[in-house]
């Protein structure tokens, strides 16, 4: 993965210049800090991130509501998620994230439903809080069985009109005898979805985590899968391999997640963090309060998977488990490699851009490397500097006006339930080895002269495509057909283009097939008519 970009340094520099020149001067200055040519020799190379998008820019980004309800909270299928606001926000977050959920024996599954207070003008004028309460009661009354929990998500106008949704949630929790949790994730909070993740983490941490006070222990090599949203069934493939190794998942945040599991999450021995961006708040808060350490993992790509699960084995440091893990890896890798070989022949050396979310632009570089493909430009849509530069950048991050408004919870070790799952000296050792509590970010994995572009805009994409002519671009739905109109195939890495799983070993093979059909698909050869050639 550390090989240099096949694009010359000069071409890359010119390209960056071309990109910046088009902007108004002030914007160019700002953007210049988000568009960085990777230089491995530069110690602690920096990149600006998690900053405002300039108005008028055609951006990939969404809002806090999307990050909170859409990404983190929505996947819990045995709860009812009510969106408090005009109808659109609930409508747009209805099944479009592809979080897969299996109905459990209790029959609870509201994933295919969309609930909203559908605020009308009079609600905006006179306040919507009573409508919200009525809506929650209606949701409770209509269904049997009852939901495990009801969540409330505020959209833009709610904050402005002053509806006290936290108060309402408290009142309804008591009235209905089930946790009603409110999230003030109005769309204007923060600068992207990222604010919503944080708000969601806070809400869960306050209201769900540790609320199972009866279960005292869960035996075995237990883990939580954090920041894994089970798009296309990723979580199931990961769990398949974990189970095969003898590792038990307690809770998943939040793909295929259930309320009951979430309330027991504090009993897992370690948190495995997939999407660092969206869930690191929870991981660190759980570590502080309950003593559950966290390991940054990447289950995307067969070698990444191996590396990650070995970290887990290292954590538990149990010879049987370690042996079992190696056995499973040998078997799974051999099988996957055999199937990948054919595809790799057709994909070797192809170039990729990656502009996705807050972790996939990094994770998928490892899978593309498995396929022999080079990621030459990459960037996140809504990550922070630590996702690029690693957590060592955290102290350097300036708290600005936009992040200041997102609550930072004060967390203390739980006087009764703080329970480190390994002896302190072992934890210290693991921390030193960077097995736990660390994430080094995307940057160290990018080769010389590759380009990092944070929060890419349409204009930048346009220039980069014309200049670098990649073989494939990993991006999202809004860019997909723009990219493809340039004659370049795009792989959606949010929705997976309705495919998947792509995690783990079987997922890698799925992915290889999927990439192959795009990169080598016959249809592209017909873009020009014979008489135009």
């Amino acid at each position, binding site marked *: 993965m550390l090989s240099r970009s096949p694009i010359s340094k000069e071409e890359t520099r010119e390209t960056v210049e071309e990109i910046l020149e088009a902007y108004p001067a002030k914007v160019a200055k700002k953007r210049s800090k988000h568009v960085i040519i990777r230089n491995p020799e530069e110690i602690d190379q920096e990149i600006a991130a998690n900053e405002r998008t300039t108005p008028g820019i055609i951006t990939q980004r969404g809002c806090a509501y999307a990050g909170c309800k859409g990404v983190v909270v929505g996947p819990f299928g045995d709860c009812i998620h009510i969106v408090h606001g*005009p109808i659109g926000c609930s409508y747009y977050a209805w099944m479009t994230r592809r979080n897969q959920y299996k109905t459990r024996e209790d029959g609870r599954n509201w994933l295919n439903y969309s609930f909203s207070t559908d*605020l009308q003008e009079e609600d905006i004028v006179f306040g919507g809080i009573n409508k919200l309460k009525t809506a929650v009661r209606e949701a409770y009354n209509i269904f049997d069985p009852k939901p495990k929990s009801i969540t409330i998500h505020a959209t833009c106008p709610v904050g402005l009109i002053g509806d006290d949704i936290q108060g309402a949630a408290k009142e309804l929790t008591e009235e209905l005898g089930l946790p009603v949790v409110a999230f003030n994730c109005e769309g204007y909070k923060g600068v992207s979805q990222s604010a919503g993740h944080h708000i969601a983490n806070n809400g869960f941490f306050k209201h769900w985590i540790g609320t199972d006070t009866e279960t005292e222990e869960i035996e075995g090599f237990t883990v939580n899968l954090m920041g894994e949203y089970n798009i296309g069934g990723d979580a199931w493939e990961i769990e398949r391999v974990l189970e095969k190794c003898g590792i038990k998942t307690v809770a998943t945040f939040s793909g295929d997640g259930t309320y009951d599991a979430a309330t027991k999450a504090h009993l897992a021995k370690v948190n495995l963090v997939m999407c660092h961006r969206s869930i690191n708040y929870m991981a660190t808060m759980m570590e502080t309060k309950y003593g559950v350490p966290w390991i940054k993992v990447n289950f995307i790509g067969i070698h990444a998977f191996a590396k990650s699960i070995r970290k887990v084995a290292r954590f538990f440091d149990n010879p049987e488990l370690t042996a079992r893990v190696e056995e499973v890896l040998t078997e799974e890798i051999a099988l996957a490699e055999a199937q990948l070989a054919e595809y790799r022949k057709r994909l070797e050396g192809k170039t990729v851009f990656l502009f996705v979310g807050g972790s996939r632009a990094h994770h998928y570089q490892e899978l593309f490397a498995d396929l022999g493909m080079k990621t030459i430009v990459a960037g996140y849509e809504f990550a922070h500097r630590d996702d690029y530069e690693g957590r060592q950048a955290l102290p350097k991050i300036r708290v600005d006006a936009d992040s200041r408004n997102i609550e930072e919870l004060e967390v203390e070790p739980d006087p009764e339930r703080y329970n480190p799952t390994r002896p302190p000296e072992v934890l210290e050792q693991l921390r030193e080895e960077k097995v736990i509590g660390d994430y080094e970010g995307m940057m160290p994995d990018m080769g010389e002269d590759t380009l990092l572009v944070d929060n890419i805009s349409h204009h930048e994409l346009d220039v980069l495509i014309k200049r670098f002519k990649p073989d494939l671009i990993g991006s999202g739905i809004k860019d997909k057909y723009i990219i493809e109109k340039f004659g370049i195939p795009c792989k959606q890495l949010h929705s997976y283009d309705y495919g998947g799983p792509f995690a783990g070993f079987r997922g890698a093979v799925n992915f290889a097939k999927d990439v192959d059909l795009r990169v080598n698909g016959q249809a592209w050869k017909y873009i020009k008519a014979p008489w135009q050639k």
Partner: protein
Amino acid sequence: MMLELTPKEIIERKALRINPAKTCQPIGAMYAALGIHGCLPHSHGSQGCCAYHRSHLTRHYKEPIMAATSSFTEGAAVFGGSANLRQAFTTMYKLYNPDVIAVNTTCLSETIGDDIPTIIREARESGIIPEGKTVIHANTPSYVGTHITGWSNMTEAMVKYLSEKTGTTKNQLNVIPGYVEPSDVRHLKQFLQTLGVESVVFPDTSDVVDTPQTGDFRMYPKGGTTVEALRSTGDSLYTLALGDASKAAAVALENKCQVPYKVLDLPVGIAACDRFVQAVIETTGIEPPESLMDERGKLVDLMTDWQQYLYGKRVALSGDPDQMVAVTEFLVSCGAKPVYVITGTVSPYFVTRCKEILKDWVPDAVIRDNADLFYLHQLIKNKPVDLLISNVYGKYIARAEDIPLVRYGWPILDRVGHSLFPSFGYRGSMHLLCNIINTILERKDRDDPDEVFELVL
């Protein structure tokens, strides 16, 4: 099982919307704006709105949907969004240089109370908006009406900002097609051409959201009604507003430029197409050519040939008011029985027209505006139907209740063809009807036991 928790018993809800049959205004405004040539729609609010609308339209069209946003943050929410909009103009003109910017508001900017006309005026005065560039706007608060209202408002804005009466009448009709597919608008233009009528069709999303793959992305595709054509609407003979959603613009045009108008149902189905042709005859005096009469006759032929598979079929319908009125009438003309017809939009037009159409043939039909799919599903649980016609969201009900589904209306996120093959006009109606018939036959084949499985139908 899919949607298993939906109970059969229907309880009237006062506050909770479940499985909506509508979304909010701004996306409709954005879609309408895409029907102006060289236009960049601009969403004045949080960037999430714009992201959602672009994503959603992209999923429906599998096409680039270009739009910008004012990217509100908390500061803008507190201090107002005028700085954001000014910055946005600057950025857009430097980066994307659109001929037209069409601004729509959102629930956020409406709740704040941003005064868009003033911001535009000041931006123009201060040179932020260059000479010769057009900026229009529509107020589209998400908490009023639906995506249909948003479309109406932006279409009305085209009239309010652009229509001009020069005093010299042009021998042309204005036709406002409604919130429909590019294939419908394309066919409508051909249809008018076949009738030999000059016209301005607006907004016109054909060749904008259904562009060819050429290996070359064009930010402003060749389609869309030009500003010049929009200006000329004030000089037209007559406006034909198709569907209730098109009425506001037609009324505005009469008020502003005294162009008389007729509101017609969408030309889907034999009767509605006939009325459209008749309206063209009445307003222009043309005679329908033989080729058009042939198409008409083929539609009738299809209806008589296949009536036995449609006759008496209980159909549930969900969609936007104008589409639902047209399809309801079309189904009745084919002998089918629309027993439940719902729309998410508040629409007296929808209720009145559907009642009129169904009063003799299905006197006990349930017709409800401001309704949702959860309610429709409950109706079906109480008494099943033979067919469901709905946008993509009907697929959950269809699966849960094992009902054949014809996808019709907006949005369709999981099938292909709606943007290519129209339902407008005699030909489009044939396409829709073939789809309905074949769906019914497919189900018949599936359900027929081996011994009655038919070769010929």
